[in-house]
Every structure is written in C-alpha cells, then in structure tokens.
C-alpha cells in the first residue's frame, strides 16, 4: 500500500486519532501491532521473516553485550552479523538473478531498512556504545515502525528507544510535514515522471534534446520523489511521537561532491560512514592515501549495491567513488590555491556547484537506465544535434504531456525556493502562535481543504496508485 494511496490516507487519520486516545503505556504495543499489520498486508511471509530476524538479534545482543564472556560474545557477534548480511545479500541476489522459483520470496517489504537497523544495533552493543535492550516489544517496535519501514529513513534503534514511551505527539507539526511531502510527490515528482519514463523507455530511438530532458529531469524527479517520501515518513512519525533522522539537506546546492554526499540520503550515508567507512579507514590508516582511496571506494560501492545487485548501481557507486577520491585528494591544494587568490572564491563556488551537479547527474543515468548500454547511448547521443530531431521531441511531448512537464518544472523551481523557508515549519510556527479561537477554525478549514485536495490529487483515472521510486529498495 503506497503512502499516497487514498486507502492509506483514509486509514492514517483513524489510526492517529485512536493513538491519541490510548493510554501512554499501551502505545508501544499499538505501534508494534500496527506495524506488523502494515507489513503483513503486503506479504505475511515478509512480516514473519522480520519477526524472526528481530527476535534473533534481540537475543544475540544479550550474549554480545555480556562482558563476562568476551570470547564467546565476539564469535556470536561475527556469526550474527554475517547472518544478517547474508539475509540481505540473498534477497538482493534473487532479485538480480530473476530466480523464478524464489520469485515469491523476492524483495520482502523493508528488508534493506530493517536489516541495517538490526546490524547497527548489534554493532553498537558489540562496541559497548549501548546496553542490550531489555524490553522486547519496544525493540520490535523500533525495528518495524511502519512510517519508516517502506523506504526509511534508517533510524538507529537506540535513537528510537530513547524517545519511549511516546507520551508527546506533535500532531500538527507532523501533519504539516506530511502535507508538504505529499504536495512535493503529486505536484512535482509525478509530473516529471511521464517525461523521464518515456525517455528511459525509448533511449535508443532518441537523440539530442529529448535525451537531455531525461539527463536533467531524472535526478530532479528522484529528489522530489524520495525527499517527499522522507517528509511523509517523518511527518507520520511525529503523529506517533517519534522524531526520525533527516535524509536530505538541499543537496542540489552542494558546491563539491563531498558536500553533496553530506546532504543526500543522509541516514544511509551516515550509517555507512559509521559502520563501513570508519572501521575500514581505521584498518587501512597506516597505508596513507591508498588506504583512504580504498575505504572510499568500498564505501561508495556499498552505497550503489545497497540499491540492488545490478551493473548500473555498481557503476553509479564506482563513479561516485572516483569523484570523491578526486575531491578529497585535491582538497588541500585547491584550498591553498584559493587562499592566495581570495577574489576567485565566488567563481570557484559557482564552478564547484555546476560541476558537482553534472557529475552526479552523469552517475544518475546509470542508476536509472535499464542497462549500461542504454546509459552509454544516452550519454553519447544527448549532445548531438541539439536543435534538430523535432519529430522526436513532438513524440515525447505527445506521449508525456507538455502540460505535466511544465507543471513539474514549475514545481521544481517552487520547491527549491520553498525549501529555503520550509513552508511546513513556517505554517506550524504561525498557527501555533495564533490564539485558540483563530487556530482551531483555521485548522478545521485547512483539514477540509487538504482532504479534498488529496482526494482529487491521489485518485487517478483507472484507480492506479502512484508508487514511490525508493519503495522498491
């Protein structure tokens, strides 16, 4: 069930209202049951597997966290981490190899997210950063929490558990965030999707401007779509009193590739930085620059392959590894150069911004294309005959709809401007400061408008639901 489906948006307020009425001591149980129903409705076997992995990790952590059995705990830790990694790798491999006999097993909902939560918890216990959890319903709710299970963000269990019992909900702030995300999804991402889908489905039949449209629009669509999903997940979390980690910080304003990766899919990159990059960097620190380059490369390949075992994701990771190594290794000399020429700083920022954007967009072609050959075709033919091939452009416009594209592009511009002021936060502050006799009628009026708008925006011809790009991971 998609977050933008009318069914889900109808059920959510009922669940949130019921949650408000519950005594605080019952809320964790409620979240746990609701989360398992959410996963079970998609696939009950996936819910069972999540329950088994959660129970396994919960009990293993008790052995790992026992200071009296250091040798036994290390062996148990290594076995358990290998087991969780194999579980993830197994299902990613099934999906990549299209193994028919395991078809029904492929891609259980939320696997990429909950295995990462379980692994981070186990590693933190092993490192002595946290104590093993004592309360199993709380731990299971932290792993299965339904607003975050379909597409993140990846919230470390310790951070979730600190917020229990969830006595204080932030309903209006959550709703503002939810509506902001929904608007991004249906007004921006979904209007860019037809053009992007058409271009990437007909790559070999297109040239010049049509391919360039795919090159530039896909990363914008991906950002609008994925950040919308994060906004909705975080907004829903607040309805249930849980503050989750942010995933984006205006990534397309980054002026270097390392700056970019501090702003894009932050809950995944922070996870990998802590549990993959830093241990690798520690192990290779005596190797100097080669150790740094190796650690960055493995880390970025992991970023790519986390999305799936496909050559496109591997190339995406390898390209970003190359960019990052180049960025890090030249940082000192670039800084020294600019220090002696302060008047060049403005130009360097603009050039850095433009270069970063194009390097990332280049890598995203491999992320989206149906195969590496499609990606090479797009990249090699996008710059040929820009002013010609009018028939191809006309076909693209007819198939994708120029009105939707204009709406999507306008939405992108509005989105970039709006993210500077964050209308959901502005709205929350403004209405919270108003007296109650103004606040409640306004809230009621807005709620009626929002529900009506959602109905018209999310109910599509033919009853199709709009899926999020990141729900497939």
């Amino acid at each position, binding site marked *: 069930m998609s977050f933008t489906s009318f069914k889900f948006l109808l059920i959510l307020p009922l669940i949130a209202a019921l949650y408000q009425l519950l005594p605080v001591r019952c809320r964790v149980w409620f979240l746990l049951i609701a989360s398992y129903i959410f996963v079970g409705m998609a696939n009950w076997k996936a819910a069972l597997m999540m329950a088994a992995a959660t129970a396994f990790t919960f009990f293993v952590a008790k052995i790992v966290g026992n200071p009296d059995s250091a040798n036994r705990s290390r062996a148990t830790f290594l076995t358990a981490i290998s087991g969780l990694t194999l579980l993830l790798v197994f299902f990613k491999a099934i999906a990549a190899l299209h193994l028919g006999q395991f078809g029904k097993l492929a891609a259980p909902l939320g696997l990429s997210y909950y295995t990462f939560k379980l692994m981070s918890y186990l590693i933190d216990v092993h490192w*002595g*950063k946290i104590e093993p959890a004592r309360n199993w319903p709380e731990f299971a709710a932290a792993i299965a929490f339904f607003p975050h299970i379909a597409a993140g963000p990846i919230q470390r269990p310790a951070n979730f558990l600190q917020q229990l019992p969830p006595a204080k909900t932030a309903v209006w702030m959550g709703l503002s965030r939810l509506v902001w995300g929904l608007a991004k999804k249906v007004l921006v991402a979904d209007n860019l999707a037809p053009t992007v889908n058409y271009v990437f489905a007909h790559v070999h039949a297109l040239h010049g401007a049509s391919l360039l449209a795919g090159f530039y629009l896909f990363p914008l669509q991906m950002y609008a779509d994925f950040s919308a999903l994060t906004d909705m997940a975080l907004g829903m979390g607040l309805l249930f009193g849980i503050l989750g980690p942010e995933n984006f910080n205006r990534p397309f304003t980054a002026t270097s590739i*390392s700056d970019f990766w501090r702003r894009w899919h932050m809950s995944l990159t922070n996870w990998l*930085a802590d549990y993959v990059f830093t241990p690798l*960097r*520690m192990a290779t*620190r005596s190797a100097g620059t080669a150790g740094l380059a190796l650690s960055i490369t493995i880390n970025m390949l992991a970023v790519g392959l986390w999305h799936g075992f496909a050559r496109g994701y591997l190339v995406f990771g390898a390209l970003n590894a190359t960019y990052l190594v180049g960025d890090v290794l030249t940082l000192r000399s670039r*800084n020294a150069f600019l220090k002696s020429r302060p008047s060049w700083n403005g130009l360097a920022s603009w050039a850095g911004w433009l270069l970063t954007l194009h390097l990332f967009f280049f890598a995203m072609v491999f992320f989206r294309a149906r195969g590496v050959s499609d990606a090479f075709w797009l990249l090699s033919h996008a710059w040929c005959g820009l002013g010609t091939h009018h028939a191809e452009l006309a076909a693209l416009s007819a198939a994708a709809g120029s009105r939707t594209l204009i709406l999507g592009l306008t939405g992108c511009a509005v989105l970039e401007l709006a993210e500077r002021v964050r209308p959901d936060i502005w709205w929350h502050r403004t209405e919270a400061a108003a007296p109650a006799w103004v606040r409640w009628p306004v809230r009621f009026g807005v709620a009626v408008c929002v529900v009506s708008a959602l109905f018209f925006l999310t109910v599509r011809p033919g009853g199709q639901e709009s899926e999020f790009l990141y729900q497939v991971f």
Partner: protein
Amino acid sequence: MPPMDKAQAIEELTEIFRAVFDQPNLVLRDAMTAADVENWDSLNHIDLIVAVERKFKIKFTTREIMGLDTVGDLAELTAKKVSAAP
C-alpha cells in the same frame, strides 16, 4: 611520556586540530562535536586520529574511536592512554 590530564590534552590537541582542519584560530572546548568544527567530517576524522596517535605515540582501537562523541571524550581517552604508556 609524563602523565597527562584532560585539560593538558585539550591544549595539546588544539594544535593538532588547527593543523588537520586548517583552522589556525580554532579554540577547542570540552563539549565540542564534529558539527561545531568546520571541515571536520567522517572523511578526515581518521586523519585527526592518526595525527593524535603520531604525536603521542599511542594507538586507538575502532571500538574506542566509535565511542567518542565530543572533544572532551577524545581528550580524556588521549590523556588516559598517554598516562598509561610505558
């Protein structure tokens, strides 16, 4: 090396931080985290650790490094290791 306390460690660490993060006027405080120091991120965090190890001729483990949250934590660990060194 003679025994060292946390305050001394912060003083010595200041020079290392200034050199690694290219911040000549940086003043370290106990509660500072990576978010408070410009250029301090996961990419160059281990450069800082290596510089501290070289300066004091000590070795950190990954587990110790991952347990650090603030400058004060690093200073405390450094002082403890330096004082325990033969």
